[in-house]
């Protein structure tokens, strides 16, 4: 099976290249980016051909593509790949508008190609176990969830409105939104959101808070802020605490760490030993494409998460609670 990586702007591109090299029976043949040097750096990791020409990545020998470009190019690259009949794994957020995401889903459906949104957290064993606990019903009815997806400010194009389509809210809303949709089998109904520029001199928001309501009545807050300082022992977090009628469940997806202190650096870091969820996601995507099965986390999942982001920005703009509008497919 042959893959191409379309765009390497996203920090995950290099990691995906490394994982593919280790997976065996899959080969990354081409790596495209507008930036030749960036393409070469990732291509070198997986012994692929770097190119500045997308069409070179869409030849008949390529089975599927991994789209890791800046957010705003997702749509264009998905259309090109779909037109060429390639199955697609696209970085999150799927798109920077709900309309765009809807069209991407439609285009792939028409072309008969699979579109997966890269929500790797779904593959984490901690989330698998969380879903089991929730399904067992030991918590009773779920009433509320307090969640966070904090991070350090990623910099570069992530801080560019033109390339990312937004800041912390655009970057860090979709993971937890997707997890809660998956874990609670429910959709989001409304959101009240706040946004601010507080931590860095950048053009997009670096602080945000979302207070959400799900269709079955569960209340949720989510903190997507890029609020972690440079000395934070890790990049950030994904946490959720579920409050049920019979108990609570605390989930900290990246808590499996060894604390690492060094003489040379006046701080400490976390050395993670938890599952490599990116590897689990890529292996599953490749296996399902090969078996001609529907991918596990679809473009529709990416669309639904994008709709929540759009409602959050609408709330920020209006200062009011906004409904989460769901595109009909």
């Amino acid at each position, binding site marked *: 099976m042959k893959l191409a990586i379309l765009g390497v702007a996203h920090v995950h591109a290099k990691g995906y290249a490394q994982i593919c090299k280790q997976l065996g029976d899959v080969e990354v043949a081409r790596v495209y980016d507008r930036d030749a040097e960036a393409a070469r750096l990732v291509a070198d990791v997986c012994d692929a051909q770097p190119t500045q020409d997308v069409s070179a990545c869409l030849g008949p020998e390529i089975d599927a593509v991994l789209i890791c470009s800046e957010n705003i190019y997702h749509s264009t690259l998905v259309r090109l790949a779909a037109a060429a009949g390639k199955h697609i794994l696209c970085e999150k957020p799927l798109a920077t508008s709900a309309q765009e995401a809807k069209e991407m889903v439609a285009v792939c459906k028409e072309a008969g190609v699979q579109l997966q949104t890269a929500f790797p957290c779904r593959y984490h064993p901690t989330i698998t176990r969380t879903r089991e606990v929730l399904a067992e019903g030991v918590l009773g009815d779920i009433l509320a969830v307090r969640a966070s997806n904090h991070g350090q400010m990623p910099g570069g194009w992530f801080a560019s409105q033109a390339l990312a389509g937004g800041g912390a809210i655009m970057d860090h809303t979709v993971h937890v939104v997707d997890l809660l949709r998956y874990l609670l089998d429910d959709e989001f109904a409304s959101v009240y959101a*706040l946004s*601010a520029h507080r*931590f860095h001199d950048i053009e997009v928001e670096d602080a945000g*808070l979302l207070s959400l309501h799900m269709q079955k009545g569960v209340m949720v807050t989510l*903190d997507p*802020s890029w609020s972690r*300082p440079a000395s934070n022992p890790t990049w950030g977090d994904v946490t959720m605490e579920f*409050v049920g009628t019979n108990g*609570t469940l605390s989930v900290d997806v990246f808590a499996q760490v060894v604390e690492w202190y060094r003489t040379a650096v006046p701080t400490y870091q976390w050395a993670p030993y938890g599952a490599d969820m990116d590897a689990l996601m890529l292996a599953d995507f490749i296996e399902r494409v090969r078996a001609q099965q529907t991918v596990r986390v679809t473009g529709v999942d990416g669309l639904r998460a994008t709709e929540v982001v759009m409602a959050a920005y609408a709330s920020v703009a209006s200062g009011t*609670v906004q409904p989460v509008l769901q595109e009909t497919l």
Partner: protein
Amino acid sequence: MLQVALVGAGTIGHVHAASLLHMGNANLAAVCDIRQETAAELAKEHSARAFADLQTLAEDPLWSAIDVVLVCIPTYLHEQTVTLAAKAGKHVFCEKPIALTADAAMRMIDVCADHGVKLGVGHVVRFFPEYVELKRKISAGAIGEIGTVRTFRGGGYPHAWEDWYGQEERSGGILVDLLIHDLDFIDALISPIVSLYTQRLAASVREHRDYALVIGRLQNGALLHMEATWAHVAGFRYGFEYAGSAGMLQFDSSKAPPITLFTRGQQGHQGVTVPESPLVKSPYRSELEAFLAAVETKGAPPVTGQDALRALRLSLAAKESANSGKPVEV
């Protein structure tokens, strides 16, 4: 020596009584509680006299010797007791929240002012050493400009006399009784709170389960996230996270205790875990000392009735948002 009367010998009443044991300038002279045995027991420990309520004490010759009344009874009873004490010229230290409505709080402030007595309110979080250190660090610019403030407070449902916490008309519910701690600290000592949006499980609907997630904005531009819970299985925790342009300050009370005692259970019973955080002086004692010092020096109490009214208004704003489903400007 200030002579002190305690009204309400519940949990917090016992805490204040214990603080008085260590003070050289005050003496617990009377303990009032409608639970006669409870009152008698605590009074005995302090060689004080026990009374059923403040009215009964007011009819006793001891009344004329009382300088200060500590009001540690359920919130809905605050006003009548504070009014009785103030009209008799006694200084009043009242537990938080001052009252259930702004009108009641204003009447209490007025009656104390009219009779020339001090009114102090027990917003004790301001005296907790971890919050004192937090304030010191923030003031020193240790994290630069504050970007986000996160607080949490709560645990299991507080079971108390006549289950008064469970009745909105007696306790005000979690937003008025519990969240007020963090609202007061942030608003008074960090930056005024300018807007709030609340989602809450109503106590009336979910018996013995009250929970709120509140977000908002501070005058300095920071975003605010607050969690208050009486929906957890057991225990009590509180904590904060202040993230700023130059750093971050975090505290979690469940990780803080330097001493934890584990005892093995007997014959199949579960063991017991008791964490403790010993201090030279408890925040409750610091709080009471500061109030009594204000009485002695005729200065302003550390937390005034007006301060408590402001905090109450914030709780009521959070409640208004929960009820309306809309954000509220404060």
